[in-house]
């Protein structure tokens, strides 16, 4: 076999020299780092090297003279002669199968992912092709890993070329913007930008390409993106310039920061409330303190009228303090700043404690408080101080809005596997049906003349309802004018996870 470079004239060299150039060729092929297979224009294997033996698991003897199709998986076999024909009609050094995934067949029937380079050669026996074959299994594994990383990234990743067209988008992009990849690829990135800021964007892109630098986008500005349905959402965008064989591109990573913004708004609100409450309590110190000193006659005696007025000042001050505390509590719950401190406690002990504190004001009005607590619910696991707050509110209302000589009844009952009810019933002025939905609304008071006399803060029930609902419970009212009122609170027996 005589191998020569393409288009060289047949040599008139002496036999010895042609033999040594043959040898040289064989040596080169044998020492190549890749598997090499020399094929003639009939598709028969003429020469292979040691790497090819190892890659395919065949010995030289087994392959030489055999058709190349021996090394090709079944599904590609039929097309291959055509590819060979195409190659020999316009032979040129190139890689095979651009854009296709190529596979080769081993002697044991397994497949291996490969990359193939083709080199046409002229020989005395006619045109041939020297194929160099690289096992790309490892490379594919690494590529797959990268693909997984990009696809499982928790933020949208979009590759944008220097014309502003999207050439790649990961699955998070699809989720975030609610488009499919196909709807995005090839289109301008501006389609994901709200119309009111869209026209400025090409300028920004141009500026970035002038000075490409890995950085966050829009320093100091609030950025928004727009979904397929036209809704907007706030975003944070990181920009990464990439230079690749495809040209200058930008990798944009986009995070939806709607949650973070909501949290920030909440935080500012609760900070404001804390400061406001502090400011409001400070002057109350003087109002309550000085009136107390005078009422207690610590700085001299008082006549009856002076004492009376001072008591009014003091009572109003207390009322105001109560209001401030309730407003703060209510907003803390709304802002979600309240955490329940769960503990096991005895229900009847707690009720007893509360009743004890209220007995003085009950006695003043001649009101009797009775208890009927079911033994089926001896202890509960809730936020104890909040539970007491709820019960205190209901009990003090029951006394406040009661008729002199009336009664307040506290009853508890089991309600299903993990739930109980506690009801507070009074024999008081009642609540008209039309007003019943309003009693839980902050500051909205029923029949203001009556309630002003009773000095409600207008917040007690609103706060009570919030606390009950925070515990996953509910509160109901049953009442009619002058027929008394029953408030029933339903709560879980235990909020603790087993």
């Amino acid at each position, binding site marked *: 076999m005589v191998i020569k470079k393409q288009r060289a004239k047949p040599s008139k060299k002496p036999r010895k020299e042609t033999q040594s150039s043959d040898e040289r060729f064989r040596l080169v092929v044998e020492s190549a780092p890749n598997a090499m297979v020399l094929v003639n224009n009939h598709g028969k294997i003429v020469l292979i090297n040691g790497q090819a033996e190892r890659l395919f698991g065949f010995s030289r003897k087994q392959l030489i003279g055999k058709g190349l199709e021996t090394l090709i998986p079944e599904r590609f076999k039929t097309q291959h002669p055509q590819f060979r024909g195409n190659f020999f009609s316009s032979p040129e050094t190139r890689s095979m199968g651009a854009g296709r995934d190529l596979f080769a067949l081993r002697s044991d029937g397994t497949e291996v992912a490969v990359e193939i380079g083709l080199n046409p050669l002229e020989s005395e026996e006619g045109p041939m092709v020297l194929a160099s074959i690289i096992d790309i299994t490892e490379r594919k594994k690494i590529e797959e890993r990268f693909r997984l990383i990009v696809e499982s990234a928790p933020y949208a990743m979009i590759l944008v070329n220097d014309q502003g067209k999207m050439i790649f988008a990961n699955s998070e992009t699809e989720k975030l913007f609610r488009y499919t990849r196909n709807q995005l690829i090839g289109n301008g990135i501006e389609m994901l930008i709200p119309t009111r800021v869209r026209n400025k964007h090409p300028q920004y892109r141009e500026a970035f390409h002038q000075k490409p630098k890995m950085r966050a986008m829009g320093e100091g500005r609030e950025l928004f993106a727009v979904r397929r349905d036209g809704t907007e959402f706030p975003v944070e965008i990181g920009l990464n310039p990439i230079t690749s064989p495809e040209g200058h591109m930008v990798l944009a990573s986009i995070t939806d920061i709607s949650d973070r913004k909501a949290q920030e708004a909440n935080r500012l609100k609760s900070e404001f409330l*804390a*400061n406001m*409450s*502090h*400011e409001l*309590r*400070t*002057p*109350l*110190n*003087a*109002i*309550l*303190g*000085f009136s*107390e*000193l005078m009422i*207690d006659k*610590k*700085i001299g005696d008082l006549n009856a009228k002076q004492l009376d007025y001072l008591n009014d000042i003091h009572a109003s*001050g207390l009322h105001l*303090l109560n209001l401030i*505390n309730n407003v*703060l509590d209510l907003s803390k719950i709304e802002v979600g700043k309240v955490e329940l401190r769960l503990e096991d406690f005895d229900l009847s002990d707690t009720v007893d404690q509360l009743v004890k504190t209220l007995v003085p004001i009950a006695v003043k009005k001649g009101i009797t408080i009775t208890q009927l607590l079911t033994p089926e619910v001896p202890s509960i696991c809730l936020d104890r101080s909040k539970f007491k707050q709820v019960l205190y509110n209901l009990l003090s209302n029951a006394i406040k809005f009661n008729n002199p000589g009336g009664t307040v009844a506290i009853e508890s009952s089991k309600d299903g596997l993990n739930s109980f009810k506690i009801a507070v019933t009074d024999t008081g002025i009642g609540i008209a049906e039309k007003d019943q939905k309003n009693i839980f609304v902050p500051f909205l008071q029923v029949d203001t003349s009556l309630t002003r006399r009773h000095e409600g803060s207008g917040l007690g029930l609103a706060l009570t309802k919030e606390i009950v609902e925070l515990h996953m419970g509910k509160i109901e009212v049953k009442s009619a004018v002058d027929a008394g009122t029953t408030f029933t609170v339903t709560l879980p027996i235990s909020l603790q996870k087993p």
Partner: protein
Amino acid sequence: MKQVVTIVAVDDNPANLKLVSDLLEIEGYRVLRCADPDTALKTIENERPVLVLMDIGLPGMDGMQLTKIIKSRPHLSSIIIVALTAFAMKEDKERVMAAGCDGYITKPIDTRKFKDEVETFLKKKA
């Protein structure tokens, strides 16, 4: 003869300063009134009171700074410092204690309980 106990009261709000000072004077204490941290520090250095009632206002204000200074001076560190704070939140109370206060009383104060609370703090020291 009963020894007079000296207390220094610090508050930049005149009405509040008057309230705590008058209240304690009625109970027989000698109360020195200071309306700002500089006056307070000077008075504390000169008079070496047993207890200081410190108004703690908004964060970044001088009450806590002054507390830290007092506690850092060896000849003053044994003075009991009780913070008067209108803040009701747990984190604020923790901050007050972290600054070195020996205790706190929340504002608005209950004048009927106040003298007992002060007495408790004084007893702790003895």
